[in-house]
């Protein structure tokens, strides 16, 4: 629905001198979606996020936040978005409570609502027990959470988080994932990272940015699959036999390669191996298949996965 399109970026381009940081980048994020922005360092992620947050003007293209063009309604748009830069903008001498209250005031929240907004932000980011402590005395993980809390303290509809899980341990990353799942019910989220596994865990959609251009946009969750390489191609009846194996959702064949979609590749793999051997088919290789996204990302990063 059009009314649910909270971020609409159209044909954005941005140059730094002769360096083209962003080229013809378009992206639409609807309410309820959390998009992971994936790319190597220098891919243009931060530039795109700064443009969407109203910190940077594009050389070309337009941005609409909650249906309003940010160029003409910057103030109204920024009141409805929360932004966490790569380095959290923290005042180390402030207590968490004072800092969050100041952030809410700067975003134009009414004075009488501040205390409840601060409490809610602390609750969401698991900061309740450190509210009175000085930010400078907190661990890096807590400081990162305070950074996230400042972005959402005024309860924005659009959240732009640049590397929100940087410096967090696996448990804290899991907490951020839960928080993002909770937030995306009412918001549109854009989260950047250069770690594929992390981004696919915390976002509903993924966009891959490489050298300033989008190379992929789509849902992050694809059904996992097994890749089987046999010594010979299977006929239709043999394929049906394999496809009927318990746990197999779908089957595609490309010459001697078979791809079996499933819920749990780890459980299915030994059963497939046993079945293939039992049928007397020459089994050459059996492995968990890479998703298209993984393949693309590893191509871009130059990492070879066998």
């Amino acid at each position, binding site marked *: 629905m059009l009314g649910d399109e909270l971020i609409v970026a159209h044909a954005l381009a941005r140059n730094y001198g002769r360096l083209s940081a962003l080229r013809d980048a378009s992206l639409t994020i609807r309410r309820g979606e959390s998009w992971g922005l994936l790319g190597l360092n220098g891919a243009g992620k931060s530039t795109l996020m700064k443009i969407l947050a*109203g910190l940077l003007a594009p050389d070309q293209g337009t941005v609409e936040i909650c249906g309003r063009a*940010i160029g003409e309604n*910057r103030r109204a748009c920024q009141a409805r978005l929360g932004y966490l*830069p790569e380095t959290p903008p923290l005042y180390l001498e*402030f207590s968490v409570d004072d800092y969050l209250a*100041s952030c809410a005031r*700067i*975003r*134009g929240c009414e004075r009488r609502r501040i205390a409840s907004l601060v409490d809610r932000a602390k609750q969401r980011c698991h900061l309740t027990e450190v509210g009175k402590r000085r930010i400078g005395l907190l661990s890096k993980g807590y400081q990162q959470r305070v950074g996230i809390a*400042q972005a959402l303290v005024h309860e924005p509809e659009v959240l732009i988080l640049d590397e929100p899980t940087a410096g967090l341990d696996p448990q804290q990353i899991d907490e951020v994932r839960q928080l993002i799942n909770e937030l995306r019910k009412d918001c549109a989220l854009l989260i950047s990272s250069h770690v594929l596994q992390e981004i696919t865990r915390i976002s509903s959609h993924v966009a891959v940015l490489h050298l300033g251009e989008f190379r992929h946009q789509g849902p992050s969750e694809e059904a996992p699959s097994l890749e089987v390489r046999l010594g010979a191609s299977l006929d239709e009846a043999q394929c049906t036999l394999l496809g009927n194996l318990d746990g197999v959702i779908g089957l595609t064949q490309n010459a001697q390669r078979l791809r079996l979609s499933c819920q749990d590749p780890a459980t299915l793999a030994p059963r497939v191996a046993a079945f293939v051997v039992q049928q007397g088919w020459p089994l050459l290789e059996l492995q968990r298949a890479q998703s298209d996204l993984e393949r693309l990302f590893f191509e871009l990063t130059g990492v070879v996965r066998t």
Partner: protein
Amino acid sequence: MLAILEKELKGWFAQPVAWLICGFTLALMAYQFLVQIELFFSLETRLKQLAEAPGVSQIIAVPTVGAGAALILFLAPLLTMQTFAGERRGKTFPLFLASPVSAWEMVLGKFSGVLSIFVCLWSLVALMIATLAVGTTLDWWLLASALAALLLLTMAYVAIGIMTSSLTSQPLIAGISALSIGLGLWLIDWTPGLQDDPGVLALLSSATHFRSLASGIVEANDIIYFLAIAIAALVTAIWRVHGEREVF
């Protein structure tokens, strides 16, 4: 703007250094006040012989306020150098740039934040001087005029500090630049021959305008001088901060 003012004050008084600076300033002012009282008592017998002898206000109040003016030259750069340069250096500037606040709100918020600290300090100094009224008659007009001169000088020098801070990401450079401009404007007065032939240079001297106002002679040109410096510096800062957040 009020939100930024509140944040500035909260930030200042969350740091021990702010309390240290305020304490140090008040101690110096109190010392100067006591020195002037001492001087008054030492001159008292000779003053009684003069037909139009200067009173308590001229000998104690005005020089005490004058000491405040000398302090401003150093305190204004010290208190303003972090305002914008510190935000850039600490990477906290995006907090403002991504918020629904305009450049003028940011600049005026920070300006009024630092100015409020000085207003508090000078109010305490005024109160200290006003205690003389318990034992003697004060020239209230002269005292008000001297304090107004101090406030105008403070406004101009704080605005200069805000401007230099908005132009760099190095607080030290901002502080040194503000100190250089402030001292330069003050020391123009010392140019040889200026006393005999006051020309354009005298018009630029903040010391000349301050002394004129502090001695009870309230003239529009002195007030306009300080206001013009403050406005020019703040407009420059607004222009610079506005440029930081690129306009679509």
